[in-house]
């Protein structure tokens, strides 16, 4: 090679993936290169063009557009384009335009294909992009945590290794101990002779504390020493839920039921894992507290919880779930403490969480969102004071624990969100039939509701009635869809900026507003059309897929996008916590690695695609 082409060689060496080629192969490349120049504004490639060279930007910048005029990406010095086109067969499907005076090095398609054929690592760089690339990244993250939190997301039914061991409660303690020893189990279920109803459970621990320590006769019937009517868990709940119930009820063996039948027992032995132990520990600590001060102290550990879950490689979905469980438990505990101070409620009520808490999607700096549904026997003059004080107590308590007041005042302390059920119904009906922008905004908060404490019947009756009314109203759904398109993901990154559609750019990226919320909003529209009960975004998308509103591929891509964006966000927050900074949702693109940039871009593209399909489905433009 001519020594003078060394500058071209040096440049190629600085452009990934040319850097991974063996030196002697790389040296042969400069002599094969063609060079072209495109002035600012010139079209470099148009849909339908036959592309026989790989394009490497030497100086300048290029924008790539979809056929419909949407900006796909903006590229700068040292980036490559056209690789996918060549690998696909050579016909361009997008348009490229120089946005600065641009010098382009071109490598012939034949040379490029030979490099791909001979060098696997080089080829991998041009491997799948978009949803497929994101999928493999999310899968890698998921596989990495099989041994830790993955277990806790597994279903209870997967942890049942044998049929339950049962006997009559009229048998003697001695017989029970004999059967347990023979069957090698640490607990036995007691079922009435001839019936199938579970009346009690007897454990190793019970034999020690209630029989031996108390000097009870070995001939005494089991009925006298068993734990009566133990709490059970449904087979399709998660191992995580099982651990929580055990902590909440101080019961270490949990019978599992399916279709009204007991199918086995789970115990902490099989379930216990470090990562969730810390959550379980916090929950049991919270449940022991008798005043707000105690709760505040326990809650100081929440940041540490997020950091350790993040470090353990747990999925974003599980981390948010864990944080939300803590919030739920604190709320529940505050309500109990309030009841102890203020006495029982004069009429039934349900305390419901809204927003991210309702969706089990909280992260470290989530604010409070909640409301009070009160029984229709409520009379303001008689009962108003009690519920006002209750709301004030819980809300102040949560704030003291680090869950800051809602800046939009969507809290039970606001009299508007502390109403008897009939008023709530009227309010929702009004929002649905006359969807003003404000009403639609409120819907997006209060359609995500989760029962926390109080009268569960009351809550579900109300929820059912609301869900039945939404799906049939196309105009309302169109407004809700329009609202879901309000926050658009950015297009990607350019140099050290975030690139927004229309070519504007920003120096920070808000992953919550422009990444998570668009997906949450999409899922809500789909779930309300079909009156889907699920509130969690993942659950909603899965249900929407099962109902055929989303293609399996569309649903999976969106879930991958959500997981990756959330994981990036949580890791960022964990990093901030570790260096003692206040965690937030703002990124400078400088902080993002190449890997994160590429994959976030894929995730954004998925969200954009799904937003346009939502736009078409609800014919949003006709209603705006």
């Amino acid at each position, binding site marked *: 090679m*001519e020594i003078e082409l060394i*500058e071209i060689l040096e440049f190629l060496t600085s452009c990934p993936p040319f850097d991974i080629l063996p030196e002697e192969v790389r040296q042969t490349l400069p002599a094969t290169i063609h*060079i072209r120049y495109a*002035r600012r504004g010139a079209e470099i490639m148009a849909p339908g063009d036959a592309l026989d060279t790989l394009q490497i930007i030497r*100086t300048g910048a290029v924008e790539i557009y979809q056929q419909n005029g949407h900006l796909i990406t903006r590229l700068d010095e040292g980036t490559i384009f056209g690789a996918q086109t060549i690998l696909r067969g050579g016909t361009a499907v997008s348009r490229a335009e120089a946005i*600065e005076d641009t*010098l382009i090095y071109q490598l012939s398609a034949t040379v490029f294909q030979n490099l791909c054929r001979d060098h696997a690592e080089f080829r991998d760089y041009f491997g799948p992009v978009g949803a497929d690339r994101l999928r493999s990244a999310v899968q890698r993250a998921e596989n990495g945590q099989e041994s830790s939190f993955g277990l806790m997301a597994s279903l209870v039914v997967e942890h049942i290794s044998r049929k339950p061991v049962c006997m009559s409660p009229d048998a003697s303690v001695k017989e029970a101990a004999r059967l347990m020893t023979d069957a090698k189990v640490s607990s036995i279920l007691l079922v009435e002779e001839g019936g199938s109803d579970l009346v009690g459970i007897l454990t190793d621990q019970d034999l020690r504390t209630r029989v031996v320590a108390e000097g009870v006769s070995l001939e005494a019937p089991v009925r006298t020493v068993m734990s009566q009517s133990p709490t059970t868990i449904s087979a399709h709940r998660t191992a995580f839920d099982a651990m929580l119930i055990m902590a909440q009820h101080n019961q270490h063996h949990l019978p599992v039921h399916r279709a009204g039948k007991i199918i086995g027992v789970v115990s902490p032995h099989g379930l216990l894992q470090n990562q969730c132990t810390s959550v379980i520990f916090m929950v049991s600590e919270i449940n022991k507290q008798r005043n707000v001060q105690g709760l505040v102290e326990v809650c100081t550990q929440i940041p540490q919880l997020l950091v350790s879950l993040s470090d353990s490689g747990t999925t974003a979905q599980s981390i948010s779930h864990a944080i939300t469980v803590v919030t739920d438990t604190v709320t529940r505990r505050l309500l109990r403490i309030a009841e102890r101070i203020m006495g029982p409620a004069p009429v039934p009520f349900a305390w419901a969480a809204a927003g991210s808490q309702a969706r089990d999607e909280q992260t470290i700096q989530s604010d409070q969102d909640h409301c009070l549904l009160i029984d229709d026997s409520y009379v303001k003059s008689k009962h108003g004071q009690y519920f006002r004080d209750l709301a004030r107590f819980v809300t102040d308590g949560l704030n003291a624990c680090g869950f800051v007041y809602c800046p939009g005042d969507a809290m039970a302390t606001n009299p508007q969100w502390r109403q008897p059920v009939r008023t709530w119904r009227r309010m929702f009906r009004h929002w649905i039939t006359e969807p003003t922008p404000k009403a639609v905004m409120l819907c997006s908060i209060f359609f995500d509701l989760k029962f926390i404490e109080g009268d569960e019947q009351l809550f579900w009756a109300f929820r059912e009635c609301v869900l039945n009314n939404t799906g049939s109203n196309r105009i309302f759904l169109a407004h809700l869809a329009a609202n879901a398109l309000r926050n658009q993901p950015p297009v990607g990154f350019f140099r050290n900026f975030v690139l927004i559609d229309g070519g504007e750019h920003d120096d920070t990226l808000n992953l919550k507003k422009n990444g998570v919320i668009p997906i949450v909003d999409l899922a809500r529209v789909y779930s309300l059309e079909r009156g889907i009960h699920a509130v969690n975004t993942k659950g909603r998308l899965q249900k929407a897929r099962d109902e055929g509103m989303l293609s399996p591929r569309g649903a999976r891509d969106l879930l991958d996008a959500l997981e990756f964006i959330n994981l990036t966000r949580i890791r960022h927050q964990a990093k901030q916590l570790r260096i003692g900074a206040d965690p937030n949702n703002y990124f400078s693109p400088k902080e993002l690695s190449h890997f994160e940039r590429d994959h976030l871009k894929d995730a954004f593209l998925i969200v954009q695609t799904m937003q346009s399909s939502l736009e078409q489905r609800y014919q949003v433009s006709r209603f705006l």
Partner: protein
Amino acid sequence: MVPFWWNCTHVLEFRRRWLLDHVKSGPLRDYLMTPVPSRRRPLDSLDFMALDLETTGLDAKRDEIISVGMVEMRKCRINLETSSHLLVNPQKEIPEESVILHGVTDDISKTGATLEEIMPRLLDALTGKVLVAHYARLEVTFLQAACRRLYGYPLVVPVVDTLRLESKRLKAGNRYPKAGDLRLDAVRMRYNLPRYRAHNALSDALSAAELFLAQVSHRAASGRMLTLGDLLR
């Protein structure tokens, strides 16, 4: 040696035909067999050759060529496959100040061929093409001198000078270039072209070629199809 009207006509084809009648054999005759590209030809259809010569000094009568850099352009694309860098072994010693400038020492030069061996390759590469250089006068006078000395007749070749193009562009925009504004590096910067550290015949030829593409690309923005005549005018 050339007829009286030689300097009165800019129609290179007249000169070529006259030369073809007089040059009976050799590399120059081979070169002259191909017509000179017409001024009416659109740029897309033409082949260009960016040329840079390193010399022992600036006087074509006394000084010698020590290296030749050539970069070919076809359809407004640079083609590095056909680029070449030829070292010439001069008759005299290379003066020290020239060594400092382009780094070609006597020892390196000894590895090169004689100008007599190199000129046929150069003429062959240039056949049917338009020559491009930055401050082309130097390249042109040295080439003419070499042809006259070796073959007894001058060369006929259309020449585009990127320095002159830039100077005219600036003047058309009522900007009058100051000293240094027209240096190759300074002009390239205005077109957002990369900075090359090395200075030798090949990298300077490449620099001129890239600059030429940039200038043509900006001229083409006006919409009308450019012809060779537009660049020679």
